[in-house]
């Protein structure tokens, strides 16, 4: 298992946002995390990536206990993520967003920049080249000079993914990558996710749009902070608890 979560719990005052939640992510898979609004999906993401600290439970990444680590250490450990709402450096151009995300590989050195060393210059050229490649992959080369805040919504989402890819993660965590996209964009995004998986990356994805299930190897359903179902796509689709959570009591078989 690349990522293992044991009994993760988060308590906001009296509200149990996440309660005794456990799941595992195997290397090379695409795992879906689904659930109705307010189920605690994003909280789980934030707990894994260290944005907030869990009340109890632990997170193991790559065999190491990373519970409560700061976000930047988790990023250097190999977790890349996108955000649902504020995914970008809005003042930067598309290209700069990706270039800035290459902070770790290779690491930008202060003294190198200060004295303009040959290593620094070759690193800089390498980063530029790689960033353009990533923009090509996600189809944003044509808007590389635009400011991120002026991009249409679908492009902004794609740029969020491009940014997370620049971290060169082993585990890519996508928070509603398809949210607000049109049909063409959805097909395109799912295509990229498939491509990325082929390169050996593991993907954990939160989504409302059930089209994503076509791509998932394994699905975990969550409601009121608790796991209500888990298994292959078919198993979860047929799970009465999941149907109840989405459609209500009466429609459950």
């Amino acid at each position, binding site marked *: 298992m690349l990522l293992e979560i044991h009994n993760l719990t988060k308590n906001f005052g009296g509200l149990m946002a996440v309660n005794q939640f456990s799941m595992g992510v195997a290397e090379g898979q695409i795992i879906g995390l689904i659930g109705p609004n307010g189920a605690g999906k994003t909280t789980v993401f934030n707990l894994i990536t260290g944005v907030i600290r869990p009340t109890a439970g632990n997170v193991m990444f790559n065999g190491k206990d990373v519970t409560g680590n700061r976000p*930047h250490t988790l*990023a250097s450990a190999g977790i890349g*993520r996108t955000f649902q709402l504020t995914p970008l*450096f809005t003042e*930067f151009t598309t290209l700069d967003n990706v270039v*800035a995300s290459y*902070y770790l590989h290779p690491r*930008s050195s202060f003294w190198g*920049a200060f004295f303009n060393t040959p290593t620094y210059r070759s690193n800089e050229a390498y980063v530029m080249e790689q960033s353009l490649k990533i923009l090509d992959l996600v189809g944003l080369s044509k808007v590389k000079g635009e400011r991120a805040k002026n991009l249409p919504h679908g492009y902004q989402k794609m740029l969020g993914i491009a*940014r997370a890819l620049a971290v060169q993660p082993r585990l890519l965590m996508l928070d509603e990558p398809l949210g607000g996209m049109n049909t063409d964009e959805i097909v395109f995004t799912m295509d990229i996710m498939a491509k990325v998986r082929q390169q050996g990356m593991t993907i954990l994805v939160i989504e409302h749009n059930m089209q994503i299930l076509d791509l998932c190897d394994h699905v975990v359903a969550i409601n009121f902070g608790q796991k209500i179902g888990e298994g292959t796509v078919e198993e979860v689709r047929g799970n009465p608890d999941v149907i109840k959570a989405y459609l209500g009591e009466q429609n459950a078989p």
Partner: protein
Amino acid sequence: MHIKSFLNQHKGITSIAILALLIGFLFALPRLGLRVYYMHILIGVFIWIIVASSLRVLDLSGQGSIGHAAFMAIGAYTSGILSKYLGWSPWITMLIGIGVTIIIAFLVAIPFTRVRGIYFTMVSLFFGIGVLAVNQVFSKYTGGYSGIGSIPLLFGYNKTPYYYFCLALMLVCLGLMYRLEHSRIGLTWKAVAQSHTVASSIGINEAWQRILCFGVACTFSGVAGVAYTHYYALLTQETFSFGTSINVFVYMTVGGAGLFAGPIVGTSALIIIPELFRHLKEYVPFIFAGILLLVLFLMPQGLAGLPNQIRRWYEQHSKKTKPAEPVDEVAKRAA
């Protein structure tokens, strides 16, 4: 038209040529018979440009400081006191002064950068006032209110060497700041300023980057401080007061904090223009305030952004007739 298209094609070369001409002109000024009084003013401009630009470096990481002169004071007083009371060479004490500024800046940065935005600004204000208080407590050495005078000079009483020294110092500092800003380090600082959550999600140690930025900015401020000491030879409570910090902030903002040239243009304008109206004496603050208000209301990008603003305004007005057409077509099609 030929010239215009040439300029458009070789934008990089043209701007370098203009810059070289400007620097050459500044270096040639003393030989062209610049009056000593104006030389004195320009030396001040060079020093304050370093301070205002260093404040802008801090601003890159989203940290606005109104206590920046305090770090200038630390460098200035360290160097001044050591050279005066211990009789060391100013060249050595200047290096020590910069070193002390670096150490204090980084030590102070660790607690200070834990707060963001307006809270950081407030903390910086308190630090500025705190340094002044320390200045009074140790008035035996610092002179307190009346200040410390007859600090050893760097080059004697002729102003020309100071002019060249401060000009060269300013160019070196500006060069380094420009390089940093346009490197990936500068990009990282700007990223941190925009969103610390996104920045840390891509592996940026956000706290450390803000400490680094603070340390670098304050170091440049200290560099300006030591140069100040051994030229003016007099440091008083007034020199690095809260008002000074505010002045530096105003230089940066009026020039345009978003542009590298901003603090340079702002400092030059706000020191030189009031100086030109010196014979009006008590009305000079009104001129200062007038420039401020004009810029705040009419130039959102500051003085340095004015050429861009004019160009955009010109483009908009020359195209004014065009956008109406497609609307007509739509109307026709609808009918």
